[in-house]
């Protein structure tokens, strides 16, 4: 892996100065193609309702799911719409999942004065044993029971018309069932009481195979997220500097520097600024108190600019926005504006990209987000492991099924860009609590490297992905503190 062949020269710099030390040229990028066009929004109009995105989602995923169902349960199973169901007949229905959750934050309850309720504080998880699952298609919905894990699955969607209010962060619905959900196929029969007894269910499974054009020699991509600039903690600052120094070839002995020259790209997956920069005081405090104060994010962005400048003079960098970065809130997040980074955007090596981000790097397809989709599913499902959730979204065929229900999303109406149409080779999510990685093999020969990129400000860990053999290695940085203990 990284630096295996460097051991011989490890102590090489513990000598008096020698002849002119070598400079290694950075391995050039042989092929880069930005495939994030579906995530780039041009003209934005918020006058539409969210019902459309569900309709296109179902329409887009139905053919694939029907194929999956047939391959799984036989070619002769009956594919029915909910309106065509007959009691007792075993059939397969494709629809969107909806999970009725009592604890789910609802704007209607919050503002309802009759109940005199205090708005619910944010919880780590909103699941409860009493949650119920429902399946909806274009016209109807039906309650599900049986061989289906209520806790594990994520909220489904509702086809009820949703009304969207711009100032609110959570999404109101005309009924309490506002959701986005996973499209799945269930096999079972309708009972007399009107519920659907599920015997088996299946998701879309891995998307179709994308041919592999990867490099034949070692090339690395560094994935880091959650730099968290602008926070009060100083420990992470030295680690960030060490990261920049390793990548730019300043740190390390000659062997390590020559290895670092094989890093062809750096991808920063969101949360470049820390949560502390989200000073909400300006909203709550009186204007005379906040008039001359500067937003905390201004200093943080300056620091980010300097760090990016150091990186950009040495390696191509892709910067994705995250939850706390100065860009729009709804998914897909648009790239940071280059005017915020005057020093770094002078270089052609800096690319400001969307969240989610998709690109072909040296023939390897990368797809990833800054983690909002995964952490949202974490809140509404019993799944605890970020890697498990990441794998599940890939198998469900959708990057963020909970959008726009509990996760902000743009009201698409023509097509849902979050549906996975091709299987990426590297699928990552940023801002995870720890580093995890797994190589997934698909039935049709798909190979996907799943990576959860840890939050750098908390873990001081980044990931190095070798494009040649799709392996991933974490790289940790540390300084020493007053209580230095490893």
């Amino acid at each position, binding site marked *: 892996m990284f630096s295996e062949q460097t051991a011989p020269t490890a102590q090489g710099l513990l000598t008096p100065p020698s002849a002119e030390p070598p400079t290694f040229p950075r391995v050039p990028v042989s092929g880069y193609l930005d495939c994030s066009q579906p995530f780039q929004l041009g003209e934005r109009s918020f006058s539409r309702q969210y019902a459309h995105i569900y309709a296109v989602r179902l329409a887009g995923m139905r053919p694939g799911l029907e194929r999956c169902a047939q391959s799984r349960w036989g070619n002769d199973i009956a594919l029915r719409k909910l309106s065509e169901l007959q009691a007792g007949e075993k059939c397969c229905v494709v629809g969107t999942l909806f999970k009725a959750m009592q604890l789910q934050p609802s704007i209607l309850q919050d503002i309802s004065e009759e109940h005199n309720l205090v708005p619910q504080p944010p919880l780590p998880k909103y699941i409860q044993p009493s949650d119920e699952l429902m399946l909806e298609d274009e016209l109807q919905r039906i309650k599900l029971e049986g061989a289906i894990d209520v806790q594990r699955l994520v909220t489904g969607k509702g086809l009820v018309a949703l009304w969207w209010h711009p100032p609110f962060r959570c999404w109101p619905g005309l009924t309490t069932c506002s959701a986005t959900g996973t499209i799945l196929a269930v096999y079972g029969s309708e009972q007399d009481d009107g519920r659907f007894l599920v015997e088996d269910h299946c998701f879309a499974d891995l998307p179709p195979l994308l041919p592999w054009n990867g490099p034949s020699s070692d090339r690395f991509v560094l994935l880091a997220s959650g730099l968290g600039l602008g926070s009060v903690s100083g420990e992470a600052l030295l680690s960030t500097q060490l990261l920049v120094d*390793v990548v730019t070839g300043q740190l390390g002995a000659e062997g390590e520097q020559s290895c670092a020259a094989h890093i062809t790209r750096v991808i920063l997956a969101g949360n470049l600024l820390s949560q502390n920069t989200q000073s909400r005081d300006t909203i709550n405090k009186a204007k005379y108190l906040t008039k001359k104060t500067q937003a905390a994010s201004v200093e943080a962005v300056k620091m980010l600019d300097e760090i990016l400048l150091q990186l950009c003079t040495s390696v191509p960098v892709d910067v994705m926005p995250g939850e706390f970065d100065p860009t729009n809130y709804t998914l897909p997040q648009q790239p940071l504006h280059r005017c915020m980074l005057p020093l770094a955007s002078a270089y052609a090596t800096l690319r400001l990209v969307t969240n989610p981000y998709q690109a072909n790097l040296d023939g390897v397809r990368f797809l990833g987000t800054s983690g909002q989709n995964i952490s949202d599913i974490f809140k509404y499902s019993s799944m605890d492991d970020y890697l498990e959730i990441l794998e599940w979204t890939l198998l469900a065929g959708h990057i963020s099924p909970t959008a726009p229900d509990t996760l902000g999303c743009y009201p698409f109406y023509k097509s849902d860009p979050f549906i996975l149409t091709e299987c990426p080779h590297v699928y990552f999510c940023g801002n995870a609590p720890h580093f995890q990685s797994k190589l997934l093999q698909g039935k049709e020969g798909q190979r996907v490297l799943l990576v959860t990129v840890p939050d750098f400000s908390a873990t001081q860990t980044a990931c190095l992905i070798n494009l040649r053999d799709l392996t991933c290695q974490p790289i940790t940085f540390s300084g020493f503190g007053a209580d230095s203990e490893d």
Partner: protein
Amino acid sequence: MADELYLENIDEFVTDQNRVVTYKWLSYTLGVHVNQAKQMLYDYVERKRKENSGAQLHVTYLVAGNLLQNGHVCHKVAVVREDKLEAMKSKLSTITSVHVYSIQKALLKDSSPLYNTDYDIVKTNLQHCSKFSAICCAAAVPRTPRDAPRVPAPAQSPQRHRDPGAAGVLNGHGPPAAKAPPQQHKGIMGMFAAKAASKPQDTPKETKAEAKEAPGVSAASSKAPTKNNIMNNFFGKAAMNKLKASSVPEQPKEEKEVVKPSVAVTEPESSPITVGEKPGKKSESGRIQQKDKKSKTKRADRSDDEEERDPENVKKKRKRIKQLQSDSSDEE
């Protein structure tokens, strides 16, 4: 021996100036490759310890290697104090690099002085921060102004935008040749840094792209040998020394500039330098300076007193922000 000069330099930095000398700081200060800087530090430590075993020297090292953690092989990069070096090395299954990170007189409690030293030296060398690094990237070239999509400048100050634009402005979209430090500070952020200091330093380096600036500067510098007080006012104390140093190489430059048809240039050459004209010239070159530098402030003409230019500009800028804010609150 010239080679041994670095030993004396490091000695001076560490013992006399009591600095924290990191390899990066040494590399930028002495202008050497980072690996050479690391070796220099090592050499210094070895020699110093050999000749004087009671030397008050504390060293931090950088150790990097592979470590087995949670079932997978993790690459670890750590800065450790000398006393923890062996412990860290024994923890790593394979060691990929060990080198000196910094030398300082005092024992460091934590690594923040290291970070601060590196931060400061990088900040002052932002424009060529990868110059002494071991990796050079061919793709890392500044965008040419043609390629970079530029928002059309507002109608009020198109001229002022363009002139500093030619000189390498806000986003550093300058001609690649003019990569000297001041350009990065042309934006609002760096406007008030003492970049007046670096201006005279640049003219020897820069091409004639900055026709307007150079005469202004040379006009100013031509007075350097004569009236120090005025120069003090013009640039500020920090610039004085650099100005004196660069005034000599600029003399031949001025003669070259005679050929250039430029209003500002003809003035210092044709007319003898008299006291009466100085304020006029000073104000004009000051204005040129201001126009070039303070492209954003439309009230540059208001002040002719360069001494207070910087703080006043700050004040001007504050006024502008204040006004905007008071406008909005008035409306409310």
